């Protein structure tokens, strides 16, 4: 599964995207964020405040309670500041 990172999430993790094999038991976005946070210092720094994190599954913004399901691209990023 492909995960892409943007803005300061990308900077703290240190990469813009990666392929990951999700371990069994990861069902929701919440589960995913919790698992990712334990993968290293950069991940910990990026995801320390989950309420600041926005997630899109296949380019659709979803709540953290959303099951990941069969999506092909997960995007993780800070609150948006466009316009």
């Amino acid at each position, binding site marked *: 599964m492909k995960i892409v990172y*943007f803005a300061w999430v990308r900077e703290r993790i240190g990469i813009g995207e990666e392929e990951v094999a999700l371990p069994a038991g990861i069902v929701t976005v919440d589960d995913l964020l919790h698992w990712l946070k334990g993968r290293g210092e950069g991940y910990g720094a990026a995801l320390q405040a989950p309420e600041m994190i926005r997630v*899109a599954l296949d*380019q659709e*913004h979803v709540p953290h309670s959303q099951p990941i399901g069969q999506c092909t691209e997960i*995007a993780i990023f800070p609150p*948006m*500041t466009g*316009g």
Partner: protein
Amino acid sequence: MDAVSVVVGPDRIDLAEETRRIAPGGDAGGVVTFAGFCRDEAGRLKALEIEHYPGMAERAIRRIAEEAAGRWPLLRLRCIHRHGLIPPGEEIVFVACASVHRQAAFEAAAFVMDFMKSKAPFWKREHLADGTVGGWVEAKDTDDLAADRWHRL
């Protein structure tokens, strides 16, 4: 021009040309435009860097635009958002609404802008006049509130 058109890209927005394009032939009563510019913050800022999520940026804006077109009787709606390095004085974002009724055009343009601020995947970072790269612009609660007010209608 299609009824709804969306552009996301690095190029300058030609405001004069966009204004000419949205002007109606005789079917629209009013056209409202909004253009958002990069400020110089009293000389502190050399540029804003705008990162975006390719693909989702266009999709999110198109969804916002189509929601506006369903909510108000619009004849045309044009939305443009830039990414990349933008120096002070240059335009960042542009929205134009043509409608038979001015009120609809005003409301739809404000609605689209409120959503572009907090619901489209763009992130701003400051590049400072002293040559350093500053921090990411923090999301404002007021922008979330501005987008949320439309749910109450």
